[in-house]
């Protein structure tokens, strides 16, 4: 009985921390639009916290630039377990439009986030529509429930 209360509580009040890793801030404003009146995420008890210590879900946007890669790694370590990482936007999945055509790595990027931190959910789109982000968060709830 205690176990399923714990699982339910985790799935019913996930707190999100948004880590910007260098993209063009289009995904960030779409994520912020998810908390605006039209796509209000607080209906499901979700809060956007700006302190990694308080967070359950870490949403990463943007191809990780070299300079912010060490900070992103530290932010990931600061989020207490159990945690879920959502990669949001095609930059966060494979570097999107910032990849060079001849396959050589872009000198300013430290590769997409999957090279630095383990990713659990990927949200495509450039920028992903708030509906896709909400789907991603719903999937994250399921994973939190199982963790």
């Amino acid at each position: 009985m205690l176990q399923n209360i714990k699982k339910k509580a985790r799935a019913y009040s996930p707190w999100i921390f948004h880590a910007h890793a260098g993209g063009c801030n289009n995904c960030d404003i779409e994520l912020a639009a998810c908390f605006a009146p039209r796509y209000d995420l607080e209906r499901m008890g979700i809060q956007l916290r700006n302190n990694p210590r308080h967070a359950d879900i870490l949403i990463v946007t943007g191809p990780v630039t070299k300079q912010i890669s060490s900070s992103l790694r530290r932010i990931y370590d600061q989020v207490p377990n159990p945690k879920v990482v959502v990669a949001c936007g095609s930059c966060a999945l494979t570097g999107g439009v910032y990849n060079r055509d001849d396959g050589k790595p872009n000198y300013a990027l430290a590769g997409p986030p999957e090279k630095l931190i383990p990713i659990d959910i990927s949200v495509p789109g450039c920028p992903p529509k708030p509906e896709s982000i909400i789907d991603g968060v719903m999937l994250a709830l399921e994973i939190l429930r199982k963790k």
Partner: protein
Amino acid sequence: MVMELARYLTVEAGGRLMHVSVIDRGFDGYEVVYHYALDHLEKNLHLNIKVSLPEHNPEIESVAKLSPEASWSEREMMELTPVKFINHPDPRHLWLPYEWPNPVEGVDYEFLKDRLDAPPTQKSSNQPSLMPIGPYHPLLIEGAYFRVKLKDEEITDVDVKLGWNHRGIMKLFESRSYSRGVYLAERICGICNVTHTTAYLNAVETLSGIEVPDRAKYIRTLIAELERIHSHLLWLGVAGDLIGFKTLFMLSWKVREKVLDIFEATTGSRRTPAMNVIGGVRKDLAGETIGKIERRLLDLRGEIEGLVKLGYDHPLMRRRLQDIGKLSLSNAISGGAVGPTARASGWKLDIRWSSPYLAYADGYTTWDLITEDGGDVWARTMVRLKEMLVSIDIAKQCLQALKKVGGPIKIEAVDPKNFPYNEALGKTEAPRGELMYYIVSDGTNIPYSVRIRTPSFRNNSLLPKMLKGYALADAPIIIGSIDPCYSCTDRIIVIKDSENPKGRGA
């Protein structure tokens, strides 16, 4: 010699130094280009002064003492290309990551010493005298780093380190054809991506001598003005959040959703319209979509007037925003402020008025320029709020004109073939200020080099001056008042490794 020319241009002629860019010509050394805007004398008048330097240890006198706005441009060039600007007031590292493989010698990296992962140390009493507003901070959506020196909660000195968003965009530009570059220009900044494509296309179209048909001009101006409304509404929400006014964030973003609906209905995607292509516009606006937009613009105007009234008479908001982050007119001109930050200090600087492009010229639309003279955060808020109403007027006039003006929406050239000129300057008035693209072409369909000077690049250099003397509690809203967009600021130039002087960098 450059100093006398610079003194004449800025002091007597009253011109504005927009940007200092360095073009790497491979074997025959480097070209330092000083971009001067003299568009207050005559519309669309610009002047590029070129100085070519030898290939081995190129050096030149720094102009930063005379016109301080050039200091950040020169710092950027000094850091990223082997060109040295002699006795530059502050030649420190600004953009490159700390552990860049071969740091430029002879520059003391003060930032390298107190690395970020060192535990926060309070030297004196428990009052922290040095406050890092670090790459991740709730005040900044994106990465930036302000080292704030404090004397019991009053800011005495601010030091800025940027480059957290540096994606090497200009190197990518140099490996993409013009028509593909449009989609890269759109992804420099997510909030003002229509102005980026417009500026890029202004430059490319003047480069290849293409004249955009009238209908396309009206559609481009309409999309640009709708984006200005969306950008100002977004800023109003974020500014409300910065002073703790969550309700203003919700109200203004509720209105912003209406603008995004217009974008989605007409251009197919909420935030990346991708309407502008070389020679015109991708998709025509049919008759009834124009009617739809007009109806939506009507109730949008009602909502925005409500927000303007709210901004005016909310007692606490006025008390929180008034007379903080002051920027006098003389500081604005010498520091080279652009956009609403300059207009709030009483400087009539607006690219749509001084060097009109697309449908802002006299024959197409008529609108008036908004300036305030307070110079503080309250004045900037008022300038942006009133500008939204002006944008709605321009959008309305474009819609009326679209009903009458027929004609094609695009010239069939997918990729420009011949290039009558070998360099071009494209400028627009982004929601944050003057945006400048400088494209050098070598005749092929891939640009030789692209230099971008974004408005936030210039406004950020004014922040230390604005922040001094105010409380730490005011720092978020002062930093927020210039509407910083660090994706724009960190688009940065290619690196030319010193080992292979021949090639144009990695």
